[in-house]
């Protein structure tokens, strides 16, 4: 049974709570933790809320955008400089959930949720993690695949703004709004003279965590960015995914339509 909800006013204080309180976990927006608590759990007995730990805010500077971990998805939506993320944010749950859910929390959401994280991986974002021995910075991709250690806190994520029109996003869903992903595709594709000079592509919903579609990236780079090349490259996605059955779709279906949605995302179909 829950014993404490701690409200640290800073990151160091939050770290102290995390190490001193028995069975403590981080509470960000609450949209993942609270449903677990409401049904009763032995997984934790204390919550350390980041709501007042000073981790909220967005800074958009030339070359680098930084998002505090406790920034809500609604705050991201309202940030005009991040308009390119709007179509992606719009697919995440509902406006009410976006009022509560945070950017940092999104990194730890189980699949097939967590579409912001798919975008961050495509953007090559880095996570700043406060630990017992100070801060470290690592690719979001790594944070997502290996998680953080007990007592560590993701304090912010940052990325370089993509070139105009370079960011692509598609989320295949069963419902128009407020739907988990069948397949989420986010990509930053840079063209030089109609040829792909670089591509970072991330997929959601098709593995245990969001993944890089490195095979597609490889197949695409250096190629003419036309339908034929994109379609061929999209088929390579099957090498990058390991989908599972769930209540939304089967592994077979996800694999079957992944190349379709990768192509659609890249071509903006």
């Amino acid at each position: 049974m829950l014993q404490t909800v701690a409200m640290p006013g800073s990151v160091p204080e939050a770290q102290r709570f995390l190490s001193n309180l028995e069975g403590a976990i981080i509470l960000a927006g609450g949209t993942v933790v609270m449903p677990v608590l409401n049904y009763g759990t032995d997984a934790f007995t204390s919550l350390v809320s980041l709501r007042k730990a000073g981790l909220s805010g967005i800074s958009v500077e030339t070359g680098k955008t930084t998002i505090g971990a406790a920034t809500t998805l609604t705050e991201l939506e309202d940030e005009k400089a991040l308009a390119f993320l709007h179509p992606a944010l719009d697919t995440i749950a509902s406006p009410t959930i976006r009022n509560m859910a945070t950017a940092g929390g999104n990194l730890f959401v189980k699949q097939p949720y967590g579409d912001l994280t798919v975008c961050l991986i495509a953007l090559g974002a880095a996570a700043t993690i406060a630990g017992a021995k100070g801060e470290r910075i690592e690719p979001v991709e790594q944070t997502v695949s290996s998680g953080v250690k007990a007592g560590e806190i993701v304090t912010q994520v940052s990325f370089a703004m993509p070139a105009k029109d370079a960011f692509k996003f598609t989320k295949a869903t069963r419902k128009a709004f407020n739907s988990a992903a069948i397949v989420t595709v986010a990509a930053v594709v840079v063209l030089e003279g109609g040829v792909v000079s670089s591509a970072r592509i991330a997929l959601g919903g098709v593995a245990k965590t969001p993944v890089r579609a490195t095979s597609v990236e490889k197949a695409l780079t250096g190629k003419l960015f036309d339908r034929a090349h994109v379609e061929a490259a999209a088929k390579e996605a099957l090498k990058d995914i390991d989908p599972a059955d769930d209540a939304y779709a089967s592994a077979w279906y996800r694999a079957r339509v992944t190349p379709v949605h990768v192509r659609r995302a890249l071509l903006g179909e």
Partner: protein
Amino acid sequence: MKHSVVSLTINGAERQMLVAPGSTLIDVLRESQGLTGTRRGCEQGACGTCTVLVDGKTAMSCMLPVETIEGAHVETIEGLTPPQGLHPIQEAFLQGFATQCGFCTSGMIMVAAALLAKNPNPSREDVVRAISGNICRCTGYEAIIDAILDAAVRIRSAAHAEAA
């Protein structure tokens, strides 16, 4: 387990309450404040029936431990209802036959209130987006969408009449 004292402004009135760790806003509203118009639908953040406004923004009250929103302003369906008559959104739901069993209605109206405060002239798709986290199993949504659009007209014309 240590209880703590939390202060909230609920429907304009300051309230202090002693709560167990992790007590959710819906528990406090329904059980200690007697504000039962906020409905408990799933406790998982997936149905929207418990939606209230916290500092003007919609929130699912089943997912908010009250310790984390100390000092917040909370508005519920009871607070939205004027002393006399009905709020234009309520009037639109009533006239538009937008309720059947009525269980989702409070949440729908609170979402509509937040939408119309931010966007007094929403498109149909704006309304659809706004209520996309709120489940209704009876109506098929059409009457609810129409009612919210009608409410927007009612509020705008009331504001217009006041200005004139």
